């Protein structure tokens, strides 16, 4: 039941974050969204991810967004009214995103019908590869935190990729906005 309320809160905050015109407050709300998400995930037994989400989603992302806001505009600009040549076409164009979103949503909902129900221990995802890690990771890697074991050893290469990604992001930002040395 708690999960339900948490999820509900998530939806509310998401909607607020998207709709409010004051971007700063929507950033703050986004931060709380991430925190609640983290709480939810602890309830889903994924402590590491929760930890990370709290640190990144609520922490770093918020920092970055605020930093960016401080250099741009805090208040969302009013959409300017441009009379278009084909008003009807324009209206359709405005509706297009909604259609796209609803279509995607419909497909996803459709797919849930065949999904193993939530929290089912017998779900294939929990049966095929995962058990191996739980049995073997300690004897094979000597690491008792399975997540770390997989992260660093079994799928260590993904982690290398992950670090490369954030490194790339770092250089990209430097390339994009580092002030030129004269």
């Amino acid at each position, binding site marked *: 039941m708690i999960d339900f309320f948490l999820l509900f809160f998530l939806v509310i905050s998401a*909607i607020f974050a998207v709709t409010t015109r004051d*971007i700063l407050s929507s950033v703050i709300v*986004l931060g709380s969204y991430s925190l609640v998400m983290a709480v939810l995930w602890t309830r889903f*037994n994924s402590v590491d991810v929760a930890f990370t989400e709290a640190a990144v989603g609520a922490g770093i992302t918020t920092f970055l967004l605020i930093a960016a806001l401080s250099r741009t*505009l805090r208040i969302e600009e009013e959409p300017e009214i441009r009379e278009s040549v084909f008003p009807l076409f324009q209206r359709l164009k405005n509706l297009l995103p909604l259609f796209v979103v609803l279509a995607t949503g419909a497909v*996803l909902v459709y797919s849930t019908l065949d999904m193993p129900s939530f929290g089912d221990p017998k779900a294939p995802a*929990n049966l095929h590869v995962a058990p191996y890690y739980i049995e073997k990771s300690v*004897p094979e890697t000597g690491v008792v935190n399975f997540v770390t074991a997989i992260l660093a050893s079994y799928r260590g290469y*993904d982690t290398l990729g992950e670090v490369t990604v954030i490194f790339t992001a770092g250089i990209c930002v430097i390339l*994009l906005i580092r002030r030129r040395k004269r």
Partner: protein
Amino acid sequence: MMIELIQGKYVYWFYITLMMIGFYAMIAKGNLIKKIIGLNIFQTAVFLFYISIAVSEGSTAPIMLAESYGSLDAGTVTYTNPLPHVLILTAIVVGVSVTAVALALVIRIYKTYGTIDEDRIARLEQESP
């Protein structure tokens, strides 16, 4: 029947809802930072999906309990499937990286155009390409 359908699926439906909210913001909002906020919601929703794959009733967090350290096997306790957690750890990092780059671009755009509203930028582009 209906009940257990809902019980079994409601988390998925929530993640879909969240994802759609973010998605909409990404493609419909005119403000570039709003798009990025949408992007974060969008991605987090997908992470939620992954995490909810891993959940299984009556399991504990995927860290071997102290009592079973000695005997090098999992013992009787069932642990939550750790693999999706790993994937999402990676995905979160990717998410923040993308956000960072996007924000850097937005800062540049604001410096160049003095606005972060799509339509205004488009107009400025038309006026002086």
